[in-house]
Structure formats: structure tokens, C-alpha cells
């Protein structure tokens, strides 16, 4: 079995080189060597993305490089998507969106895939979704859960705005929030009426699943 850290390093290398073919090959290698899709998500793609972020902060790479790297990460997620091990549908419908202004959608993508694996039915709205669009999608899809993704903390005001709008328009919808900006913010979020939150996609989905299990299958 391929070592996940080796795979991650190789993947970062491919991302920085802008070599998408290599990136996809690495994913295929990981799958072929028996790595689980979840591990590829969390141990390789997500961590690589964090490393890319760190490199930007350390001014080792430019934002252009970062964009190219996330494009390759998106591609890798798309490649893994058909292989997701899916639980039986639990009947719960989730509208998933990045808050207004948030351009980092990789975390949301990973959240989407983890929700699907756990048996949720996900309506994915993508990056930078205005609060009104979120509310519209909730109604249109008769969603039971609204999941918001926030990576950069300076989008916090947008998060608060979206939560308020959603609570007014659809008070029965369960609110969950995930993303890097959520770290250490769970108390504040609970106060805002958010039922679960976590920075990591797997933890967040675990919590939502537990909550859903508590409330019973629809």
C-alpha cells in the first residue's frame, strides 16, 4: 500500500507543477493500492490543500499557483466521485453552499462527498452563494438541512447574514456549518442556532449523522 504522506507529497508536487495528469494518476494509484476514498479525500487532497495554503502564507507560492493547485484538487475529487462508497439513502435532503464571497469551495466539495457517502441527498450550490439564493434553494428542494461552508474568516459577516436570512425564511431547517474558519467557533455558532459545526468534513458529517439518527429516519 502506498504511504499516504508519500502520496500527499507527490500530489502537492503535481499540483505545484500544474501537472493534472500526474495528479489523476496518483489518485488512481491510491485507489489501486487499496486506499479508501475517504483517506484520499482527507489525508491526501485536503491536507495537500492545507499545505498549499500554508505555502501561500509563507509566501512560498503565489495566489495564481494556489488557484492552479485547487483546480487539480477539484479534478481529483471529480475522479474519486464515482468511487464513493455510499450508504443507503437516509432520506434527509441537504442544501450545501459556500457563504457569499467565499471562493474556496474545495472544502464544500469534500463536505458534499462525505454527506453523500453517509446517505444524505445533497443539493450543491457551490462557491459564493448569496443568502437569497440559499433560501430559494431550501424552499425549492424542500430541504431538511442547510450546510454552509466557510474557509476564510473574513466571510464571517456573510455567514451571520446567511444564517439569519435562512432562519427567518425556513425556521424548521437544521443548520450546520463547516470549514476552516469554523475552528474554535462552535460556541458562537451554537448561540446562533447552528446544530453542529466542525472544521473537518468527516467530523462535521459524523456529527450531522448522529443528530439525524437521534431525530430518526425520515
Amino acid at each position: 500500500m502506498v504511504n499516504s504522506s508519500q502520496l500527499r507529497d507527490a500530489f502537492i508536487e503535481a499540483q505545484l507543477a500544474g501537472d493534472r495528469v500526474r495528479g489523476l494518476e496518483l489518485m488512481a494509484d491510491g485507489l489501486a493500492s487499496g486506499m479508501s476514498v475517504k483517506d484520499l479525500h482527507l489525508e491526501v487532497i485536503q491536507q495537500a490543500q492545507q499545505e498549499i495554503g500554508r505555502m501561500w502564507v509563507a509566501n512560498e507560492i503565489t495566489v495564481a499557483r494556489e488557484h492552479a493547485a485547487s483546480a487539480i484538487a477539484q479534478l481529483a475529487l471529480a475522479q474519486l466521485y464515482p468511487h464513493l462508497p455510499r450508504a443507503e439513502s437516509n432520506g434527509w435532503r441537504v442544501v450545501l453552499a459556500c457563504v457569499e464571497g467565499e471562493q474556496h469551495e474545495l472544502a464544500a466539495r469534500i463536505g458534499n462527498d462525505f454527506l453523500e457517502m453517509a446517505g444524505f441527498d445533497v443539493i450543491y450550490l457551490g462557491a459564493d452563494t448569496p443568502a437569497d439564493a440559499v433560501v430559494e434553494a431550501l424552499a425549492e428542494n424542500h430541504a431538511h438541512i442547510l450546510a454552509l461552508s466557510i474557509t476564510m474568516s473574513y466571510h464571517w459577516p456573510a455567514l451571520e447574514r446567511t444564517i439569519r436570512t435562512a432562519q427567518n425564511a425556513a425556521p424548521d431547517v437544521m443548520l450546520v456549518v463547516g470549514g476552516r474558519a469554523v475552528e474554535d467557533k462552535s460556541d458562537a455558532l451554537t448561540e446562533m442556532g447552528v446544530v453542529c459545526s466542525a472544521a473537518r468534513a468527516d467530523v462535521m458529517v459524523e456529527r450531522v449523522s448522529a443528530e439525524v439518527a437521534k431525530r430518526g429516519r425520515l
Partner: protein
Amino acid sequence: MSDAHTVQTLRREFVLRCDPEGTIEHADAVAERYGLTPQARLSDRVAVDSHTKLKDFLARAQEKTADRWEITLLVEDAPMPVSVSGAAGDGGIWVVGNVLPQEFEVVMGQVRQSMAELADMHRTAERQQRELLRRNEELSRLNRELDDSARGMIVLHHEVEEKSDSLRRMSEVKSRLVSNVSHEFRTPLNSILGLTRMLLSRVDGELNEEQEKQLQYIRRSAESLTELVNDVLDLSKLEAGKVALRTGTFPVKELFSALRGMFKPLVPDPGVELVFEDPPEGFPDLDTDENKVSQVLKNLISNALKFTERGQVVVRADLPEPDKARFRVSDTGIGIAPEDQARIFEEFSQVESPIQRRVKGTGLGLSLSKRLATILGGELTVESEIGRGSTFSLVLPRQHPEVREMERLDQEAAELDPSRSQVLVVEDDRQTLFLYERYLRGSGFQVIPARSLEGARRKLEKIKPAAVVLDIMLDGESSWGFLRELKSRPETRDVPVLVVTVTNREHKARALGADEFCVKPMDREWLIRRLENIGRYRGAVERVLVIDDDEVSRYLVRKMLADTQYQVIEAEDVHDGVRMAQLERPHVIFLDFVLPTGTAFDVLDALKIDPRTRGIPVIIQTSKSLSDEEVAALSKDSTSVISKQSLSREVAIARIREALLQAGLGPATLATTASAEGV
């Protein structure tokens, strides 16, 4: 606005100086435009995510130089990425910033958007594919379920078939049982009737008044019991579909006058009048089975008489539709309650009433009549009101549907089809004729129907058929004689003949050489007449051999012939009978069908073998219905024998071919018929 100011607004580059902690000491106009004013802390103007980076940048700049660091400024709460370079100087850090080209950012955003959309499309496609797979699986599962249920259906179907088979068998067993039991009743009943008649005829001496009365009672009881047995037998025959239709043209007026004559002595009560209203002038004749119509009317009239104590029973006929005739029997009797009106047509059902208890009846009459009506293609209905009387109506087609069909067949046969070989089918049963016609339609053979031997003879004068299909069952005519006739005449000798028969005791017996056949009880006069007839053809009859295990039957024959010139010899079983026949050489033999050690066939066979007994006429007696026997006996005298039960188009054609081949008809003819038929 000065040129310098214009240049300022176009510039996207700013310069500022800060202390090592990031507090701005000096800023140019562009920096101030982005909120980077003196005294402000840089960390307050930079997005949270860039705090660490800012710190590192300042540390690096103080040490030597920091070149092109990307940091996110917050300008009026909106993030704005800038590229900054810094170096120590003038006791602080000089920072030169560059707003990243807006366009670059926008295009980058668009590319990211496209990327996300592509990813979305990919996912949607993937989801759809998964949905398709799921549906496909669902369909396969459904398919499997359907397969399973289809298999289940087949199994069920089999079960139903088996059940219905066993029901059919049971019903067959039932009707056979009924008819057997009825026949078993008949033997003793015949004995009782025969003996009472004999006693009443005073052959054995005078009777006193009391004895005569008693004997009359016995006879009446035996007669009503016989009536019941006959009804039961009729019904079981109808159920088994063994009733042949005998149609003919007859005027209603004549039917009425026959019935009138029949009922004249039977109207019991002087208070009741039986009226037959003759149909109006010009009332068309009916073309259907007169006997069956008469049987239904007899039933209805005798019922009406039974349940009418005072008043009239009126019988009339009319035409409710041009093609239909209606007979109505109305009485002024007790009537039938509406709730009972459907029930009265059921077997053994009788409505409880004081009159009902008084009058005798089998409870089968109406059920029988209803079935007869169906056979006639008609319907039997009742209208009634308690206390006022009932009207039973029999509505039937003026011409029986089979007659119409037959006419069509006759018309078709009137024109010979030169492209087909003619087959003369001599068959009295129309249904069977239709069957032949259907079987041979389009086969290269044309059916020329003949419903009697007379008709067959007439047809033979006009045409020479390729083959003759002969039903040995023809009522009242000797098909065997006709067969002999065909075989002896030079012009028909080479025409192959197929003998078709159903297994039936009477006809088998005839086929085996029996000259007469009767059903017990025998009538004395009939008996004498038969014997005279036989005598007329064969010379004087003196010795009569009776082979019968039933003592009473033997006794009855003996008594009947007591005062005649005939001498009666008796035997009880097959062996005895044959021995007596050889020994005594009787002039005629009365043979019971079923004997303790065998059947009449055994006797007939034995008689035929011996030249001394071969010529003795045999009269078969029976009171029991017959079981299937070998057909081989028949085949001796005929080209081929097939049973109607196994008659099919294939068999019929194959047999006709065989017969044609045997008759030496060239295969050329066969080839054309075969190709015409497409075999």
C-alpha cells in the same frame, strides 16, 4: 484636477513606512485610499487569515528585504489581495504595495467558476448514471419478480388445470355413477313392472278386486320410480352431451294436436280445463327438434296440471320476433313466489307447499326442460304470481342454428369443386359433419355431406367420390349393409371407405352381427313381432335360447312365450350359453349384455367361430350402459376404423390418404392435394 492628481488616481501602487510592529508612520495618497493611514496598525487592515503572513513579512523585511508577498487587505470589509515588498530604512520598514491586477482576479474567478461548473456537470452526469443504474437494477428486479410471478402463474395454472381435471373426472365419475346406479335400479324395476303387468293380464289366473287394486298400486309406484330413473338418466345424458339433435320441419298445429291427444286421459280434475290455442293461419312451420320441443311442453303442461286445482291450463304459440317462436303454458294454479322462481330450475328443487306435498314429481322436470331449451338454442323462463298462476315461456329459433349451418353446407356441396377431391361423408350427426367440414376445409378435399344412407345413395348416382367416410351409427339404418353394398357394386368397389364410430354398445353389437337390439323391459307384442320378422327372413322359429344371469329376466321371456309355438331354452353365463347354442342350435338367441363371466362380445365371438352357430340371429338385451370395448372387431369389415373421440383434422386427412393409397389412387393426386394443403 491636476495631471499629478490624475496620475495619482491611476496608480495602483502604494508606498508606506511602518515601525517593526506594523504601525503606519508614513503613507502616500494611494495607501490612504486603501485605508492605510498614518497611526493605523497594518494588522487591523489585513484579513485575519493574513495576520501571520504579515508578521512574517515585517520580520523578513526588517532583516533584509521581503520581495512580493501576497497579503489580503480588507478595504471597507472587502478582501483585496495585494503584493507587497519591504525593506528596512529610515528607522522603520518601507513597504511598497501593488494591488493585484483586478482583471487578473476577475478572470481567475471566472476560470474557477468554470472549473466548479465542470465539476458540477461531472457530478450530475455521475449521479444520473447512478440513477440509471439504480433504475436498471430496479427494472431487473421487477423483471425477476415478474419472471417469478409468471412462473408462479404457470404453476398455478397447472394446479388449476389439475383441479379442473380432477373436477371433470369427479363429475364424470358422478354421472357414470348416477347412470350406473340408475341402471341398477332399472333391472329390479323392470322385473316388478313386468311381473305386475303379467299378473294384471291374468295369464296366471283371475285376480280378486283387492288383489287387482294392490297390483295397480305396485305398478303405479314402479312406474313413478321408473319415471324418476328415466329423468335422471336423461339429465346425465344431457350433462354428458350425449344427446343427438334430430331436426325436421313440423307445423305447430300438429304438435298441439298430438299433445292434446296425449293429455286427454291425463287431466285429473274435472275443475281444470286444458286448452290448446291453435296458432293463427299462416303460422310458419318450425325446423327444429320436434321431440325435444314436445318433451319440454309435456313437462310444462303436466307441471301446470299438477299445481292447478281449478281453472285453466292454456297452451299457445306466437312469434315474438320474425325468426323466433314462443310457446307459453299458462295456468291458474298456486303460483311461485319471486324468490323461488330462479330455484325451480335447479335439480331436485321443489317449492314447499301443501299441493307440492300431495302431487308426485321427480324435481327434475324443469331442470331437464331448461337444458333441452338450451339445446334447442332457446330459453325457458317463468312469470308468476302467488295465488294467480304461472306462465312458462319457451322461446326458440324457428330454425335451429345447426339446420341453417347444414343448409349452407348442402349449398356448398351442390357445386363440385374441380380443384378438390370429393369425399362423401355419411354421417347423421350434424355436429360431426361440421367437424369434418372444418377439418377438411382447405385440405384439397371437398366434403359432400349425406345425412342418411338414402341420401348417400343419391349422391353416389351423381358423383364418384375419392373416398367415403361412413358413420356406423346412422340411426335405424344398417350401415354395414351399405358398406357391403358399396363393396359389391363394381362402380363403387374401389372407393375406399372409412368407418367412423363411437364406442357404443348397441352399435358395437350390431357391428358384431347382432340383428336386433332392444332395451329392457321388452314388450310382449314387440317380442313376438321381432321373432316373426326374423322368421320371415330365416324360416320358422322354434327354439329360443335366453342367455341371462338375471332369473327374473329369464322368467319373463319364458312366461311371455309360454303359450306360443316357441320353446325356451335358458343359460346363465357365457360358457353355458355358447354350449347350449352349439348343442341345441336355437333359431334365435336373446343375449344379455353383461354376464357373470363375460360380456355379450365373448358370446358373439364364440358363436361366430363355430359354423354351426354363426348364422343364428342374436337379440341383445341390456339394462346397463356400456363401457368402451375394442374397436378391432369393427375393423375386420372395414378399411379403417377411427374413433370420433380421437378424430382430428390430422387423423382424418391421414386416414383418408391411407385409404386412397390402399385403393390404389395415384400419388400424383396425393401430391397435388398435399401441395394445395401446404403439408
